[in-house]
């Protein structure tokens, strides 16, 4: 039997850690809890958890600063940020600073477990995640995450900002089934009644621009009734 993955859960709200920790334990994880950023850094240094679930808004040292310090120190332990900030720009920043994924509060605890499992599956021990890289490539498709430019066979594509964000999330989460609700949360930061259609519209826009055939996809595959999956092989570029 494989050892249980160890999770360090960091949140200053004991109401949240008291309820989430047993839930995560029941879901098959070894759980340790820290109630602020400083304690989190100490426990990472002493306990070497497999992954951190990190709240952003905390007293003393907030989640973002913990993330920054770990990454600057060359520590690439996978991190999932729990954010209350829905702003799309803030979420993009979280990924740019080297978080592996994020989840908006309030969330369904089952969704948290699904995100943790996906991040652990994708993690390459000791190496930066795809989301820490500024340039990603899949064949002749190149995404520059700093300038938000997309190149296909060296020609630049004209895409709406939301289509670029959608592509960015798909590229940083390859080979993962992503639900429409999740994409909505990522790109729009909201759930909305008009939501799932909005996702389909943007995916259609991307497919047109990438000349991707939904019947035989090179990039984005539709999983009927469930969502989308990026099927191409993603590499990091210097």
């Amino acid at each position, binding site marked *: 039997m494989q050892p249980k993955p160890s999770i360090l859960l960091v949140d200053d709200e004991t109401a949240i850690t008291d309820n989430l920790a047993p839930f995560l334990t029941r879901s098959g994880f070894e759980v340790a809890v820290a109630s602020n950023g400083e304690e989190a850094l100490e426990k990472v240094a002493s306990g070497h958890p497999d992954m951190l679930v990190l709240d952003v808004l905390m007293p003393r040292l907030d989640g973002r600063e913990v993330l920054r310090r770990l990454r600057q120190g060359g520590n690439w332990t996978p991190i999932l940020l729990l954010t209350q900030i*829905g*702003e*799309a*720009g803030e979420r993009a920043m979280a990924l740019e600073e080297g978080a592996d994924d994020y989840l908006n509060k*309030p969330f369904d605890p089952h969704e948290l477990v699904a995100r943790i499992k996906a991040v652990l599956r994708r993690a390459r021990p000791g190496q930066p995640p795809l989301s820490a890289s500024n340039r990603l490539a899949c064949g002749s498709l190149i995404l520059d995450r700093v*300038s*938000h*430019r*997309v190149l296909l066979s060296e020609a*630049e*594509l*004209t*895409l*709406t*900002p*939301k289509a*670029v964000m959608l592509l960015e999330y798909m590229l940083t989460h390859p080979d993962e089934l992503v639900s429409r609700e999740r994409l909505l949360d990522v790109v*729009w*930061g*909201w*759930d*909305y*009644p*008009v939501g799932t*259609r*909005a996702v389909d*519209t943007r995916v259609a826009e991307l497919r047109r621009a990438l000349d991707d055939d939904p019947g035989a996809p090179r990039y984005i595959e539709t999983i009927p009734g469930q969502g989308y999956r990026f099927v191409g092989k993603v590499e990091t570029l210097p």
Partner: protein
Amino acid sequence: MKTTRWVVCLAPGIVGIGLALYFFLSYDASHDHIVYLRADLGVLSLIVGLGLTALAMLIFGLLDWAEQTRQETIAKAAEERRRFLRRLDHELKNPLTAIRAGLANLTESPSDAARREALASVEAQTLRLSRLSADLRKLAELEVRLVERSPVDVPALLHEAFSMAQEQPGANERHLNLSIPQAPWPLPKIQGDPDLLLLAVHNLMDNALKFTRPGDTLELHAFEDGAEIVIEVADTGPGIPDDEQPHVWEELYRGVGGRGIPGSGLGLALVRAIAERHNGRATLRSRLGQGTVFTLRLPAGLKQSVTEQTQPVPKV
């Protein structure tokens, strides 16, 4: 404070009068050549003194007026804030009461079936609170978030909102009509965020469906009016009383007719915020017992506004 102000105001006047009196009383007829000068000095000090007094009073008066206006604005904002807090408290109270009752049932109920029911009810109420929190966040974000500016095809947007409305519960009990002009030319595109605009029209349709009765008529139309695209959602519903009309755009406001109708109470506030972020307006006209029309006015064409915020859009 008040005393200092009176001293500052009256001092120049009193000094002026005093000096004038001094000059007049020290009048000496034997020195003819300086009489005029002294008399002039008296008049001069009187004018300067009284003038300074008048000026000081005017300045203090203006300061008072500005302060009063400022206080009124603050008081209005404070009143709005209190009203919002009262409504928020009200919105939180009901689901929380239900949750507490549900939890009591959960611990005390003898039967499994009753416990399952209580659990389901608690879950439904927490979802309701989550939706409220999500809507509040949307509203807060709308003020600051980047609003995409891409050309939006209004007819396509209206068709989509219309077909979504047709799928809503209760839609088949009402007469739904969509009219989009083709002549003399199709509607021009507008610059904006297609998802937000769809949300705005959807909320108006959703609202109309909720507040009308079976058998009522609902119409979605659009037309061009000068430099604006006008989108209207009209219904033959019960109408909104005059005194409630200005408030329906406020966050968490519920009119008398709206009690018992589910919803976060933020739908129309979102519509207004979306219209404003697109440099447009949202208004309504309503007659009690006859119906209501909600109007969205959005600038047509490709004109860019000064206040817009855009994300870097990839260039060709």
